[in-house]
């Protein structure tokens, strides 16, 4: 055994011999008190929201009572507009009991606005660290009525990692849920939108009978042109500025709402977008032509698209 080994062994042996654990009753008492606080908060949240169903009254704790944090999570997710089914640029956490929570997002270099909320009691400290940048720290109170806290972070380079770490205080660890979402800043949306719009405009712009959409951030709701047209051949064009990829689909809708795919192509989203064009023939019996640009996961929230068409 080396000297270092001996020193550690001696430290362990002698410290253990000296430690007198506080009575386990103390731990039970602390947990009972926290449950009482949590249940009181749950009642307050329900009162604040006029909710029904779950009713937890303050007072003597009820160990088997349902954990109200699931309800807090629903409120938190709705507050920051997080799609809980497919949380891509954000997260929902209803149990912060293990002390810290960390989430990493791979993002295109840009300015992002992160919106956080915490429902319940206590407070959390959120630390957002862009790759190669300085961390930004914000304290978010956990309240019965949800509040939004926003923080802007600049991510340099073409691509990078934004790490979000959340540390709850002792009360929030047991009595709160939090959610956050991260979105491109408005300025960067405009910048990328101009790039994509310029590319599509170069193909469609100035042509009689042509039309382009406004720029849109690729996400769950995919804007599209839904236009009633006369039967003819059309050139449909899409461009995507940002990162990742998307699928561009041109669809004809029939009178009975059936859809026929007329053309489809993959679009690469890039800081220097290029036009992707498909030529389609609009069926005589169709009621509308739809142009859709649906993001893959790697483009979700990090790319801005524009689509348009022109008669050939």
């Amino acid at each position, binding site marked *: 055994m080396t000297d270092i080994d001996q020193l550690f062994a001696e430290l362990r042996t002698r410290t*253990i011999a000296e430690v007198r654990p506080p009575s386990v009753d103390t731990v039970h008492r602390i947990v009972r008190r926290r449950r009482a606080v949590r249940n009181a908060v749950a009642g307050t949240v329900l009162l604040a929201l006029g909710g029904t169903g779950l009713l937890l009254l303050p007072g003597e704790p009820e160990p088997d009572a349902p954990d109200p944090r699931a309800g807090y999570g629903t409120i938190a997710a709705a507050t920051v507009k997080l799609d809980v089914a497919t949380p891509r640029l954000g997260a929902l956490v209803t149990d912060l009991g*293990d002390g810290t929570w960390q989430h990493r997002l791979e993002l295109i270099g840009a300015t992002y606005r992160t919106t956080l909320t915490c429902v319940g009691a206590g407070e959390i400290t959120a630390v957002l660290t862009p790759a190669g940048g300085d961390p930004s720290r914000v304290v978010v109170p956990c309240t019965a009525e949800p509040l939004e806290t926003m923080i802007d972070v600049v991510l340099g380079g073409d691509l990078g990692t934004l790490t979000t770490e959340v540390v709850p205080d002792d009360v929030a660890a047991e009595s709160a849920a939090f959610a956050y979402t991260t979105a491109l800043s408005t300025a960067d949306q405009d910048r990328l939108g101009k790039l994509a719009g310029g590319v599509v405009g170069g193909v469609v712009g100035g042509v009689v009978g042509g039309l382009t959409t406004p720029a849109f951030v690729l996400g769950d709701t995919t804007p599209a042109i839904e236009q009633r047209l006369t039967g003819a051949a059309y050139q449909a064009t899409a461009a995507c500025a940002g990162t990742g990829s998307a699928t561009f689909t041109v669809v004809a809708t029939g009178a009975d709402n059936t859809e026929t795919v007329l053309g489809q192509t993959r679009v690469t989203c890039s800081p220097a977008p290029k036009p992707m064009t498909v030529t389609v023939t609009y069926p005589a019996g169709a009621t509308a032509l739809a142009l859709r640009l649906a993001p893959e996961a790697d483009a979700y929230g990090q790319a801005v698209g524009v689509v348009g068409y022109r008669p050939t």
Partner: protein
Amino acid sequence: MTSIADSRSDQPRATRDDPPSFDELYAAHYAGLIVQFYAYFGDRQEAQDVVQEAFCRALARWRTVSTYEDPVAWVRKVAWNLAVSRWRRARTALGFVRRQRLEEPRTDGPGPDRVSLVAALGTLPPKQRRALVLHYLGDFTVAEIAERERVADATVRSWLHRGRTALAAEFEGESR
């Protein structure tokens, strides 16, 4: 009294069919965990704070934690998360000042070797200190530390080597 050594192989129960009671787990592992965090913080009060908080969180969700193969591993993880968070929040800046005095109100005080070791650990960068404490007091393997810290095994070996070297230099300096 129940054994109080916190050994990673010394689990209170071996199977999930016979889970430990919370009180048994607490009695068996409290002191062993205190040693690790005392060595990390250099302050027994800080150590007691994080370990007690970790046990509180375990009790709050005991129905789930008790079904884990290794409930004390969960408690240890929570305590380490709390410890690292506290460190990051610079709460231990004051603790460092206290550490220099090494006040131990409930005992006669640690012997000189322990004082030297804990004080020397306090001079190491947090990652080296954490690696040494996990390895020597938590009985973590290099691979387990690497997984916990999300780094390569070689990085942990480097932390341990540099930490040991720094400790040895510290003690050599003292003996002169």
